[in-house]
């Protein structure tokens, strides 16, 4: 008997219950933090500001304002206008003149931008997936992680984070910066990855969204 058969043979399930029905019933009405669904943006921003998340944020009306917002942030941080930018068609309409752009992150990448599919008010989390237009590594290598999030994509609870249907290689939730308390329980930011997280809220729509 191989290992698989040996293990499964000890886990024989004689019950004739409908396992899927029982599993679904276990979820019921989940206990979760209160979120005012009329105020999801304010709730989201309040969580972003918590010490455990400690992200800064900015506001833009249209996607065309994104480069200016990124420039504002980098200038304020004293960083060069250099940016690791994913090959996402939603960003192609932006005028990045004055920026040194690249698609692959360097080991000591200073700033990278990513587009979050969702923001979650319950925790201040940003939700991402990998795809040919969305690499993952830059978001973990970079010192400054800049995230574009459409206000309309803020959802109240984590139940709305998962992606339906076939899964991409990675689906990930970012709720703050790379931190550690491994030495004497003292919190240090930037353990391995980002030391700064900056969310740029887009009030309007992505380009061509209505035509898609």
């Amino acid at each position, binding site marked *: 008997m*191989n*290992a698989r058969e040996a*293990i*499964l043979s*000890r*886990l*024989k*399930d004689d019950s004739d219950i409908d*396992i899927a029905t029982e*599993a679904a019933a*276990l*979820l*019921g009405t*989940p*206990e*979760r*933090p*209160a979120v005012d669904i009329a105020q999801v943006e304010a709730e989201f921003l309040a*969580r972003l500001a918590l010490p*455990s998340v400690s992200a800064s944020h900015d506001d833009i009306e249209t996607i065309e304002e994104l480069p200016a917002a990124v420039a504002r942030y980098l200038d304020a941080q004293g960083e060069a206008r250099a940016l690791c930018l994913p*090959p996402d068609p939603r960003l192609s309409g932006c005028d990045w003149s004055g920026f040194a752009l690249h*698609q*692959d992150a360097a*080991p000591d990448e200073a700033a990278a931008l990513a587009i979050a599919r969702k923001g979650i008010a*319950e*925790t201040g*989390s940003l939700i991402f997936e*990998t795809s*040919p237009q969305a*690499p*993952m*590594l830059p978001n*973990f290598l970079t010192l400054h992680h800049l995230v574009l999030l459409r206000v309309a994509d803020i959802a109240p609870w*984590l139940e709305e*984070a*998962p992606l339906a249907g076939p*899964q*991409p*290689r*990675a*689906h*990930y*939730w*970012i*709720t*703050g*910066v*790379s*931190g*550690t*308390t*491994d*030495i*004497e*329980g003292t919190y*240090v930011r*930037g*353990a*391995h*990855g980002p030391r700064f997280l900056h969310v740029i809220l887009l009030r309007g729509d992505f380009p061509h969204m209505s035509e898609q």
Partner: protein
Amino acid sequence: MSGAPAEATRFKARADAALADRILKVAVERTAGTAEAKRAVAVDAFPDFQAARTRAAAIKDHVVAHLGHYLEQFEANATAAGAKVHWARTADEACDIVIALCKAAKAKSVARSKSMLGEEIGLPHALAEAGIGRVETDLAEHIIQLADERPSHIIWPAMHKTREQVSALFKAKHRLPHEEETIAAMAESARRELRTQMLGADVGISGANFLIADSGAICTVTNEGNAELSLVPPRVHIVTAGIEKIVPSMPHAVHMLRLLARSATGAALTQYTTFYTGPKRPGDRDGPEEMHIVLVDNGRTRMREDGLAEMLRCIRCGACMNHCVVFRQIGGHAYGGTYPGPMGAVLTPVLDGLKQSRDLPNACTMNGKCQEVCPVRIPLPTLLRGWREKSWREGLEPQSLRAGLGLWAWVATRPRLYRMGTGMAVRAMRLLGSKGWIRTLPLAGGWTTYRDMPKPAAQTFMDQYRKERGR
């Protein structure tokens, strides 16, 4: 292997050494004390945490009851997503699979993201024996690796180290060590040291906090982001996971995640929560070419059969040890196993044998705090009592205790004799005391070495009561 008495002496010797180490006490108190305080705040702020615990326990019990079904479902979905699923009955089988995969990948170095299952199966040792370089990427595990030690806590493996000890270690081992004596500068030194090593690894190895049955995804949670940096760049990603890590679906995982971080650190979530499903897809710009998932039994099916099914609910949050009065005094190394504290005292006899570890279930005051804080309501004291029963049945308890308890029970089941005996004992004890206290009491040196024993009253309650009431 040596017998029980020798091991008992070793546990006590380790505990004594830990008790004498005041630096250890400070280090443990600092981290566990902070975790305890932060958890309390998080739990108070959460609406109906008790109901959430009940639900979490029910979800895990459901999974454990239908574990075969869920493992097959997970296997099918992970395979469909392009991952290769392997099965291991024992620690050795699991290590053999991982080493074979590393050799097939011609791996010179592997990046490891902290995994207690990896520690449980002895993976660091197996990699060393196979001559494969290993980079521990969690900061605490990196400290442990440099110091050539074992983790002392499942969430903060380097809990026992002070900043001074870490500083000396980094200065001796890092290429460009910190100059300023701050914790931030030390963390920065580790960042410099580890980054290039992580990016140059051939294989990334992780555990899994959850296995999602209906998608075949594996979930890691970290605050440092080291899992992602260890698992995205290498060509091969190997996961070793205990078979009990399954949850039916993402909404179930969401519920467990809400409890996990709050119980461990008091945060709503860890900074990074990632679900990996199979290797990179066509066109993806990063991610591994191969993903392997090793499902490890190592005693878990036996636990399910032998009355320890409730222990398979454990989500490894560490709350039980943070709140344990014994752990807080002796730290994690004194326990001598992979897992310390109350959950470790239940698991170590499964993994290392009861004969080697009979002290662990006994070195507990049965105060019930661990059960009170457990996010999945594991009745830890009941499970520890179960080990004590087994140890008694198998004759592993010291002969002196067996004889003493036997004599006492023989008398106590004979009330008339018992009354005479207690009356005499009281009178004898009174001879040893002065001014209300007894400072040394024969056969109770364990008590009077450290504290005084109040002198009993002149007569037992039963004698006085009979006299007063004339019954």
